[in-house]
């Protein structure tokens, strides 16, 4: 198995990636209602969990009196997870229908094939992000400032790309949409087994231990800036390091699976 990376002119690679990215966005742009589940689900969870668990803000040591402000960053990451999962499921469907074989016989570098698909996940996540932000503000969330929104959205988009790499890998391994629950479970665990509902100090013993070692907890902390407290480099850089590491790691797995695909 060759591990050489094919070198193509930047303009050609860019055009290929752009085309594949646009195709990846077709589902939400051309299919009426296709974007709705991805937007509705995280919003329902945000409002539902707030309505149900909102009063835990009364616990001593809770850092805010606005539970929804504490939760909305979690919803951003959930939305990023859903977007990533949708990308993987769509790829699995393409594989089942034989469409993916068409792409594989094209003279497109394998990394470019993936880049376009994964970029589409990053972009489509802006839809649920926007809805979540509007709904959260309507229901009393603290306005994080433009800086907070930029930080949250940027990190969220990168996280969506990471989740897309994960789900694309599963799609390439299992080659069936039946792997969807596995894709979704992965993102679920990464996002919710963190200081999602409450700060670390208030988590139950086992979840505290898991959240401490879960790298996504740093990502959550970074996204939470502005909604809870201010934006500091100290709260930002750990999340960025985690994102970089996860992106490199999951992207490598995805490319590796693509190179093995069909062999």
């Amino acid at each position, binding site marked *: 198995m060759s591990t050489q990376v094919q070198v193509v002119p930047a303009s050609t690679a860019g055009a290929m990636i752009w085309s594949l990215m646009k195709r990846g966005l077709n589902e939400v742009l051309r299919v009426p209602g296709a974007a709705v589940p991805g937007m509705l689900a995280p919003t*329902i969870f945000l409002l539902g969990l707030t309505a149900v*668990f909102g*009063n835990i803000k009364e616990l001593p040591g809770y850092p805010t009196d606005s539970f929804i402000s504490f939760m909305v960053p979690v919803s951003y990451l959930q939305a990023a997870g859903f977007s990533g999962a949708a990308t993987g499921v769509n790829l699995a469907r393409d594989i089942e229908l034989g469409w993916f074989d068409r792409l594989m016989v094209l003279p497109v570098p394998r990394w470019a094939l993936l880049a376009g698909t994964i970029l589409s996940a990053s972009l489509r996540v802006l839809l649920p992000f926007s809805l979540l932000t509007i709904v959260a503000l309507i229901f009393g969330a603290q306005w994080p400032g433009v800086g907070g929104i930029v930080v949250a959205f940027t990190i969220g988009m990168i996280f969506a790309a990471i989740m897309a790499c994960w789900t694309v890998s599963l799609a390439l391994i299992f080659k069936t949409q039946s792997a969807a629950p596995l894709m979704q479970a992965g993102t*679920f665990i990464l996002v919710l087994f963190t200081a999602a509902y409450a700060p670390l100090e208030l988590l139950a013993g086992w*979840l505290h231990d898991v959240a401490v070692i879960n790298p996504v907890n740093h990502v959550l902390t970074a996204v939470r800036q502005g909604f809870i407290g201010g934006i500091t480099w100290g709260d930002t850089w750990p999340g960025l390091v985690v994102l970089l590491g996860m992106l490199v790691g999951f992207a490598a797995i995805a490319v590796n699976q693509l190179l093995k695909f069909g062999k």
Partner: protein
Amino acid sequence: MTTAALATNGRATVSLAKRGLRQALRRPQFLAPLVIFPSLMLAANTGGAGRATELPGFPEVHGFLDFELAGAMMQSTMLAGVSGGIALALDFEIGFIDRLFAAPVSRYSIIAGRVGATSVLGVMTGIWFLAGGLVFGAQIQAGVPGAMVILALVWLAAAAFALLASALAIAASKASVVQGIFPIVFVIMFLSTAFFPLNLLLEPAKTVANVNPLSWIADGMRGPIIGELELGTVAKAVAGIAIVAAIGFALTGLTLRRRMRTG
């Protein structure tokens, strides 16, 4: 209906129920939403909001897990109902339902078979959560009789939800439409006492939960876990199930008759 016809219809119902169970067990991707995601959510809720037992007004419980088990079972039961509807809709999509409708059995027997399978699936998930809860430290205060009552409620509730989902499946004949009600399931659950006590919910969830039959069902499942077996609580749960079942039965009859008229 003659005795022979009753026997034939009975056998048909049992055969179709077995088929439904077999289908579910052979399609792991349909089982996952019933078991894996409610389990993950139970873990996240318990770990993240576990200190809620310290809030003033929270009922006396052995542990937050004990309180949350009913929510997980409710979630699983409702999703089992939806899965049954999806499976029925798939039968319509692939034309298998025509084969069943052309057979000399009552159409209601055919639906009863599907409902039967779903109700058994519900009990299986109920056992999963009760057993899992015990493993992770929960206690069923009402003992074995309490556990039996809980499973009986789960069985009936799953059948009731399956009736509702069947009506939708018959009307829409498309699995994607039935699948689309997943978010609604969560909305209805968040607007009940499935996950938190009524007095500690935020408005307007509290007001809705107060009149939501699903609250009665959830409280009925929870009662024997966190306290003694109370006839009133169980009766209220049965009444809640009866309301859901009555609506489901009426809608199923309506859609089935319309289907027989229009083909």
